[in-house]
């Protein structure tokens, strides 16, 4: 088989696989994700949750939307950002205006 044929088959396979992953795969577990989101919505509504539980190392990263000005500088006035997740996240929107 010619090298170009082999390469084009490889590219065609990649395109097919990418197309499958982008357009078909999301439907495989659609029910699971719908149920999952519904359960989360119920929990959020019941408890009045305002933030994701993604960064639990500091309170101003645990509740990103609820942090006050002082939370990030709780250790000292000139405390540079020392939590890794604080470098990933941005301050709440109202502090950036």
């Amino acid at each position, binding site marked *: 088989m*010619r*090298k*170009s044929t082999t*390469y*084009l088959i*490889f*590219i065609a396979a*990649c*395109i097919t*696989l*990418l197309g499958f*992953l*982008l357009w078909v*795969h*999301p439907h495989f*577990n659609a029910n699971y*994700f719908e*149920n*999952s*989101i519904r*359960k*989360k*919505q119920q*929990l*959020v*509504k*019941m*408890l*009045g*949750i*305002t*933030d*994701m*539980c*993604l*960064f*639990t*190392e*500091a*309170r101003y990263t*645990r*509740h*990103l*939307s*609820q942090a*006050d*000005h*002082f*939370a990030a500088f709780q250790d000292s006035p000139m405390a540079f950002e020392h*939590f*890794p*997740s604080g*470098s*990933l*996240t*941005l301050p*709440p*929107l*109202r502090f950036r205006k």
Partner: protein
Amino acid sequence: MDFTLSSMLRRKWKNISLIVVYSAIVFMITSVIFFANAIRKEAEAVLQDAPEVVIQKLMAGRHDLIPLTYVEKIMEIRGVRDVEARLWGYYYHQAAGSNYTVMATDDLALKDDEVVIGHGVLRTWGTVREKQLYIRGYDGRLLILKIKDILNADTELFSADLILTTASSFRRIFGVPAGFATDLAVRIRNLNECQTIAEKIVGIFPDTRPVLREEILRTYRSLFDWRSGYVLVLLSGAVLAFLIFAWDKATGLSGEEKSEIGILKALGWDTSDILLLKFWEGSVICLTAFFIGVLGAYVHVFFTRASLFEHALKGWAVLYPLFRLKPEINFYQLSVVFALTVFPYVLITIVPAWRVSTTDPDAVMRQG
């Protein structure tokens, strides 16, 4: 294309190393895009049911406990459907070295010595005995709380560190006096009136700060903004290194490549044929790298739960939620990655080849 591939196979390891590095760059960038997009969509879908307005009390710029007497005045505002006093706070468990969020709720029919916890609490608490938690209160007293239930594992992204208890248990743990709450969650009938009602509340209680649901959603929309933060810093070093490598490879044609072009010209190849050859060479490398990178990123984010990012996201935290993200692809961003992956590299491959192919073949062959 056959000739291009044969030519590339003559410099097999150089081209393979270029494809590997290029694929890694595309993999990293695409993984960040997929992950950030999926998390943002999840936050937008779920936090739609967050309270319309959260009222916090401030004292000297810091978050302070809010008196329950504020509830009655806020309820009198036209358009307010309900005001719920929320009790929540952070408990640091020394044995686990982890922070937990303790919340009071009346919705789970709990007794004062019962709690409902998230899966992350069970995983990390470390000193759970016979389905009981031992919590040290603000006054040093030990409280023994029975685990009545565990929150659904599918909700870990929002509940992994939650410990739900009754209001009186909460006050015993943290010493929050009766008549005060952490903040107030305000439910509003007409969502278009949120801003107006928030302004009215601040007018009545100038020592409060409203947090609107829209602000919460926008905070999470801009979360993981990969145009800022150390993700970009990390990537910029890698991207710069790759650009230097690719530029060196593409612009500094080796002697062998120059003599190859010279020979082809001497054999009667036109400049346009040489450029087409180089175009295919560049295209093969970037298309291969693009597909390997993007497919790898999809598998990494949606099949292995973005395991490579876990350490960065976890930071120094002990507790990290286990969650599956719904595949959500932003095709605009994917097409930008494609454009940035393919076009610049093909261009910097063609330009030096054009310079060499317009030179006298004899001179080129002698140089090689």
